[in-house]
């Protein structure tokens, strides 16, 4: 029972901080933080690092996908090749890449870079599992 009551109060506080006006949050931070300069410096570092990590993760996905697609094209595996063709057909600016055999890793990266990489990777993994 005690946990149930605590949960409700905690839910309410969670929602409060999630939804409260910016000004209310700023006021509460002003009260709690003793060295605002130091806090802002740390905040900037976190944002910088988060962006860098996100970009790194994105690049890792891109490279992993490009490798998988390139391998699939070389081995002429039906589903990945179909996915790649579909991506090229759906975008006029990618018309140059009609000849799949001649695609380099960089070309594939160019084709897939703006797509949902996680989804593409899952589609390829599903294909791997079914073979």
């Amino acid at each position, binding site marked *: 029972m005690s946990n149930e009551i605590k949960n409700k109060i905690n839910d309410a506080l*969670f929602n409060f901080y999630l939804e409260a006006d910016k000004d209310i*949050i700023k006021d509460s931070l002003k009260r709690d933080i003793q060295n605002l300069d130091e806090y802002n410096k740390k*905040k900037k570092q976190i944002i910088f690092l988060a962006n860098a990590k996100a970009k790194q993760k994105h690049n890792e996905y891109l490279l992993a996908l490009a490798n998988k697609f390139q391998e699939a094209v070389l081995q002429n595996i039906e589903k990945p090749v179909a996915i790649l063709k579909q991506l090229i057909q759906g975008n006029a600016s990618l018309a140059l890449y009609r000849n799949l055999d001649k695609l380099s890793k960089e070309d594939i990266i160019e084709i897939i870079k703006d797509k949902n990489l996680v989804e593409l990777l899952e589609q390829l993994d599903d294909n791997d599992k079914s073979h």
Partner: protein
Amino acid sequence: MNLTEAIQSIDFDEVIDRMNAYAFSQLKSVGVKTFNGKEPIDFVGEVILKVMEGQRDWSKANCSFTEFLFGCLRSEISNFFKTNKNIYDNELPEISTTDQSFSVEPIRNSISEILKLEGADDEELTVFEYWADGITKPSEIAKDLGISVKEVYNITKRLKRRLPKIQTQVKNII
């Protein structure tokens, strides 16, 4: 939406402020100022990096990125208090999976009484009643009461300040 897009979709600076304020409030609820010597902003930073490194998987989330980050923070804080249970005997609860209201009316009434004795006004008691009924979103409370969300924030602010004061008494009755 990948992580880079997710970051761009929010005001990251502001979300970190929110997360930090939440972390502070959780620390206050157990009467300490740091996570074993770690400032809340450092704790928040570690949670964000866990998300960016994929230890907490955003790709499978079914909510906004801000809600996801907040959920991760809540879970990490809960884990921290669980791991350090010997230090913080009043550890924070796990993420609630139930939407049932308090089932034992006397306990609920006793907490209301304690709040009243500690000076809570009718508005605070009303908001507490909503929480007890499982309605915890300020926007929902505001809509139901026919007042602005800002008013609910202000009432919650007062109520929130009162909660640490009643903690010991509440612990004695539950």
